[in-house]
């Protein structure tokens, strides 16, 4: 229906839009998306982003394999996902169009760099006929913009070589989209000026390309109108747009400060976890030591050595690295020393999909060690929540003298959202509570230090780093006698110690919040998730509720142990749906632990769930629940 209220001179107000920038790996699409995101954040929109790029640094130019994309969802109200499908696709070449066109809804806008649609590129993308001319895109509004030639033209008088000038075309695209969505231009102009200071030609070419794109939108009369997405109503305060990896790094810094423990990161570079190392290595003035080890095993080994010495020992990794660290985790469990293992999950098995997201390491985190080797597991649910989840992992590790696995994933690691900056003073206290002297008196009256004499409440053992006279002691991976810590092979002691180690971890349930349920009176269906599915589940729940149905949502941060009331919560509902980006791992744990008929909704396609699939799965269950409910009533008549 035509909107007759549009004033062609003023932007058309919309409440939200999803834009996908797509091009070759070398086209700078991540940069364009990131800058668009930043100016939208500064403008005050709520937003969520989804960078989606290949594992190859530079796959062959122009091919489908080389397509790199950045999706951003901006809105004037609170949102939780980067959007199911783009409203706007910016395609810098035929491959970018072909790789993304199937995900576009009817009526979507496509803006293509028409200069790139030559025979060679069309062929590389697998097009026999130019899709711009064959009517195959008739369901969409297609805008053909000669981005390369206008960009090159804009910097011609600077004396930039055409091949170099062309490289600014991502800024042209950014300028055009900035006009189309009425973004403030100053942040981007300032950013370019600062970023390319000292490289005058590059700076000037990028500024000109950006302005050329912006003015093209304004003057070309190609677009009927520009659009505006008003700022969202966010809680007052200071905000920054963070990725999950940055929030994780900052969480470690915060926990290091509040605990007074110097931070030591022992790690080996691996996608998508490396940015945590990159971030921390920049901040040595916090007393942070970052150690790029010779391998994954050394990374966690050095972190454990640092923890033994009284530091906050941390290792970061992804799936293949987690496999390699298993033995050292077992040692940390046996030694009962605090240690943080951060697993930024990616598609597996083996090398799998290094740059794509997955949640398939849960059972590995839970059970992936020989022997009875329980370990707490914490999972972050949004990029900014990585901060809180990290602090919580450290709190538990230090208090209970145990290694803790923190699960993040590729989607959280690289995705961003606006985050209300926390105060250090609001963070939980973390007390290392180091041993200070002997803790036991032998029968002959001698005061001694027993490294495995436990706190009766937490069952945690004392943490006694080397350096204090009178506390010298030996620990190791051999089974030890409870209390004295001496090597002990007898079966009764092993039984006792195995149960003690299990009870210590299980007991943490008393020290974590009850299950956080977003309930609705009368809801008979519960959807429960963990990790990065939070946004999609929340969006799906919102849609279902908007249709007038009732549904309850819970999301687990603590996966081992579970919150103490979880069993009761699950039993309150007729149907329990467990969406996961794996083949059903939490659902198995819930079924095994609570004997509930938890139903799985799974997907392992390397991308996050869409709100729409969540919605339809929930609607189906609600319907089933209603049917079975009425059947029961009939039966009871």
């Amino acid at each position, binding site marked *: 229906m035509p909107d007759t209220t549009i004033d062609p001179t003023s932007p058309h107000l919309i409440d939200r839009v999803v834009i996908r920038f797509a091009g070759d790996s070398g086209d700078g699409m991540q940069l364009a998306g990131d800058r668009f995101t*930043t100016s939208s*954040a*500064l403008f*005050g929109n709520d937003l969520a982003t989804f960078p989606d790029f290949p594992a190859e640094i530079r796959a062959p130019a122009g091919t489908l394999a080389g397509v790199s994309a950045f999706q951003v969802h901006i809105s004037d109200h609170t949102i939780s996902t980067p959007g199911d499908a783009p409203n706007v696709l910016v395609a810098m070449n035929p491959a970018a169009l072909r790789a993304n066109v199937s995900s576009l809804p009817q009526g979507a806008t496509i803006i293509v760099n028409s200069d790139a649609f030559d025979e060679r590129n069309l062929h590389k993308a697998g097009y026999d006929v130019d899709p711009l001319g064959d009517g195959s895109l008739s369901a969409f509004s297609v805008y053909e913009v000669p981005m390369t030639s206008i960009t090159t033209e804009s910097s011609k008088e600077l004396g930039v070589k055409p091949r170099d000038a062309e490289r600014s075309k991502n800024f042209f695209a950014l300028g055009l989209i900035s006009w189309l969505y009425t973004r403030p231009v100053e*942040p981007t102009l300032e950013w370019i000026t600062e970023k390319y200071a000292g490289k005058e030609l590059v700076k000037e070419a990028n500024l000109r390309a950006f302005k050329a794109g912006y003015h093209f939108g304004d003057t070309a009369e190609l677009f009927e109108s520009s659009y505006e997405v008003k*700022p969202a109503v966010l*809680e*007052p*305060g*200071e*905000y*920054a747009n*963070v990725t999950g990896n*940055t929030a994780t790094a*900052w969480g470690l*810094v915060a926990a290091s*400060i509040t605990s007074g423990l110097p931070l*030591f990161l*022992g790690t080996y570079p691996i996608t998508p976890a490396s940015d945590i190392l990159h971030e921390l290595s920049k*901040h*040595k*003035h*916090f*007393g*942070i030591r970052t*150690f790029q*080890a*010779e391998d994954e095993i*050394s990374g966690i*080994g*050095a*972190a*454990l*050595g*640092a923890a*033994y*010495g*009284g530091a906050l*020992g941390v290792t970061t990794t992804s799936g293949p690295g987690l496999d390699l660290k298993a*033995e*050292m985790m*077992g*040692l940390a469990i046996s*030694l009962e020393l605090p240690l943080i293992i951060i697993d930024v999950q990616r598609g597996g098995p083996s090398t799998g999909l290094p740059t794509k997201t997955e949640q398939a390491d849960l059972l590995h985190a839970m059970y992936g060690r020989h022997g009875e080797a329980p370990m707490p597991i914490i999972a972050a649910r949004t990029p900014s929540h990585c901060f809180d989840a990290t602090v919580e992992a450290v709190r538990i590790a230090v208090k209970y003298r145990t290694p803790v696995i923190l699960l993040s994933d590729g989607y959280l690691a690289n995705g961003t959202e606006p985050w209300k*900056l*926390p105060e*250090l003073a609001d963070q939980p206290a973390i007390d290392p509570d*180091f041993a200070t002297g002997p803790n036991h008196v032998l029968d002959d009256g001698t005061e001694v230090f027993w490294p495995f004499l436990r706190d009766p409440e937490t069952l945690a053992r004392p943490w006694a780093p*080397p*350096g*204090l*006279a*009178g506390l*010298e*002691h*030996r*620990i*190791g*991976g051999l089974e030890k006698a409870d209390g004295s810590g001496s*090597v002990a092979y007898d079966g009764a002691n092993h039984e006792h110690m195995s149960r003690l180690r299990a009870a210590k971890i299980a007991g943490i349930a008393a020290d974590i919040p009850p299950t956080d349920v977003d309930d609705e009176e009368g809801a008979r269906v519960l959807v429960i998730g963990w990790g990065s599915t939070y946004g999609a589940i929340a969006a799906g729940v919102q849609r279902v509720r908007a249709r007038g149905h009732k549904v309850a949502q819970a999301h687990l941060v603590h996966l081992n142990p579970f919150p103490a009331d979880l069993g009761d919560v699950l039993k309150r509902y007729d149907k329990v749906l467990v969406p996961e980006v794996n083949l059903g791992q939490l659902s198995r744990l819930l079924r095994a632990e609570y004997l509930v008929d938890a139903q799985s909704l799974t997907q392992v396609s390397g991308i996050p769930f869409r709100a729409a699939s969540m919605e339809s799965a929930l609607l189906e269950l609600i319907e089933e629940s209603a049917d079975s409910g009425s059947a029961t009533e009939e039966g009871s008549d």
Partner: protein
Amino acid sequence: MTDVSETVPVALTTRKDWSSDQEVRWCPGCGDYSILSAVQTLMPDLGVRRESTVFLSGIGCAARFPYYMDTYGMHSIHGRAPAIATGLATTRPDLDVWVVTGDGDALSIGGNHLIHALRRNVNITILLFNNQIYGLTKGQYSPTSEVAKVTKSTPFGSLEHPFNPLSLALGAEAGFVARTHDMDRKHMMETFRRAHAHKGASFVEIYQNCNVFNDGAFEQITGKDNRADMLIPLMHGEPIRFGSEGQFGVIMDPDGSVKVVEVATVGEAALLVHDEHLENPGLAFQLSRLSRGPYEPTPIGVFRDVDHDEYGQQMAEQIDAATERRGPGDFAALLRSGSSWTVS
């Protein structure tokens, strides 16, 4: 952690103070006993504190060592002690960190960690008990076993060429490399003392007899009656000379390789003069390859002792420099290090 070293003087100790209450459980007659004894006897002489001393180990017979020292200690997992030691030594420069390992632990499963700890020059002292056999798993060939060795896992003889531990350490550019053996407590103590005094990574290979699975492996060179003619004591600044009457010596050929000669034939002036402090590891490397195995005249003592920047100290210096440049870390400023904005 509080560093007490500034305020409290080092207490006088005896060997007994360094011995833990744990019963030593190596096989009777094992060479490990004499190494333990040499270390325990040496410690009171080093002027170090028990509470600032840490023994770390991996897995194997040698790896039980920390349990017997009344210091801080950790018996960890197979091959990984150098990695754990790297984290400890870099975060706690106030500690003396020793790594006790064996030929399987250090050179097979833990080979990667060993060479990287050496090249980074982490401030640790590594004692490698080389008995050329797997003892704890009951007698399989090790990465230092000789070719054709018949063991439980190689009934037709092993096919593998052994590692030369000293060549390997020198190849990783270790700053301190030495060899000693379990039949000479005085030599062990002197070698360990030097290794401990060296700042950075120190590597000591100890020929150690496993009397159960590889008895007599070094007898031909370390036996009391054989030593004089079969062990070549290296002494800095001295011509390399050995033999019951000093009748043998070592010279360097024009191609850079070294060989054993009779002094009478070449003349004393032709003998190679040992220099531990050469930056170029070439001489030490040639000496490490003088003997093809413990059946030929074999050099013992310090092969190389050169100072390089120590890893943990460099790490600390980077932190100090960053702190001086930017001031101590300000968390609120960190959160605002990217773009931030205010919603009112």
